[in-house]
């Protein structure tokens, strides 16, 4: 007897052109057998589609991050298949959860161990501003100790919100000037955090 079918009774025909995301080609000039473009655009394209995140998960935002990494939301679609727990190899520090004042030097040390170029995403109210923990023991936002590129609001944010924040990081990474990290302004920013 045939088993009653409840799911996928109208399966979609697979269409490779719909299902595989291909990055847009950067501007440039091309002809027979060659393509010339800006070096910066190529580097940006490569970097933004292969961001290795370092999850620094301390509380409930970390649970949302697990959902984000799992099959349903699947951060790997954006080139972040490899979640690395070694700061030396990572591009993006994702701070998720309450950072107590005692934890602050550790966050900073992890940030310092990352190689340039590095980016930081603060996920959730606690990492961004201390959140509900307006107390003597909690750091009131990680931007007091390290520079933050993207803040994701929410308590905790839904995985979609984090994806949105991640896409914003990708946008920043893709558009970043190759000389930004050597600029005086960047050095000033680092000095304001007492780095170097």
């Amino acid at each position, binding site marked *: 007897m045939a088993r009653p079918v409840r799911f996928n009774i109208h399966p979609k025909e697979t269409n490779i052109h719909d299902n595989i995301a291909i990055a847009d080609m950067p501007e440039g000039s091309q002809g027979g057998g060659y393509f010339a473009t800006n070096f910066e655009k190529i580097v940006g394209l490569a970097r933004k589609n292969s961001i290795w995140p370092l999850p620094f998960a301390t509380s409930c935002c970390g649970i949302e991050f697990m959902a984000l990494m799992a099959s349903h939301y699947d951060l790997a679609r954006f080139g972040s298949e490899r979640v690395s727990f070694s700061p030396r190899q990572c591009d993006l520090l994702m701070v998720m959860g309450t950072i107590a*004042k*005692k934890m602050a030097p550790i966050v900073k040390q992890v940030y310092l161990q990352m190689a340039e170029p590095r980016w930081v995403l603060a996920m959730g109210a606690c990492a961004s*501003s*201390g959140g509900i923990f*307006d*107390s*003597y*023991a*909690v750091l*009131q*936002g990680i931007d*007091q100790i390290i520079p933050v590129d993207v803040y994701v609001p929410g308590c905790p944010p839904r995985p979609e919100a984090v994806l949105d924040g991640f896409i914003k990081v990708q946008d920043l990474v893709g558009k970043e000037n190759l000389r930004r990290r050597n600029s005086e302004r960047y050095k000033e920013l680092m000095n304001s955090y007492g780095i170097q």
Partner: protein
Amino acid sequence: MALTNGTIRQQLTEKFGEEIYDWSEPYGMLTFTSHKDLNLKVLQHLFDDPTLQFRFLTDICAVHYPEKKGAELAVVYHLHNLVENIRIRFKVFTDVNKPDVFSATALYASANWMERETYDFYGVNFVGHPNLVRILNADEMDYFPMRKEYPLEEQTRVDKDDEMFGRD
């Protein structure tokens, strides 16, 4: 003879007389107070006495009463007799300007951790403690956060607009 609140009280009164006072039994738990200089003598007696046998120190904590001048800080010991399964609460009070209390670490090893915690949050100076330094808060913290003269809220926060919270 089973140990009851009445027999414990009787035994302690025989031994210490008027030195132990403020007897009460909130929710059935015998509670009493003594002078802070006597805290080790009372604890030693509670530990050693063959009928009392309070050999388990469940908790040490402090309470800050800013309105009680001269006795602002209470140090509270919770003791447990594991044989009779009975608990008591023992308090000593000290002046907040001179918060010296004798350490119970020689008697109860578990007092080590709990006295450090009490020092960390209330600044009670446990005389005789082997390593009285902060245990939970950051080492560079320069005040005792659970004392009531310090605001609970973090003072470095800039994004909290009082108007938004309906405060002046």
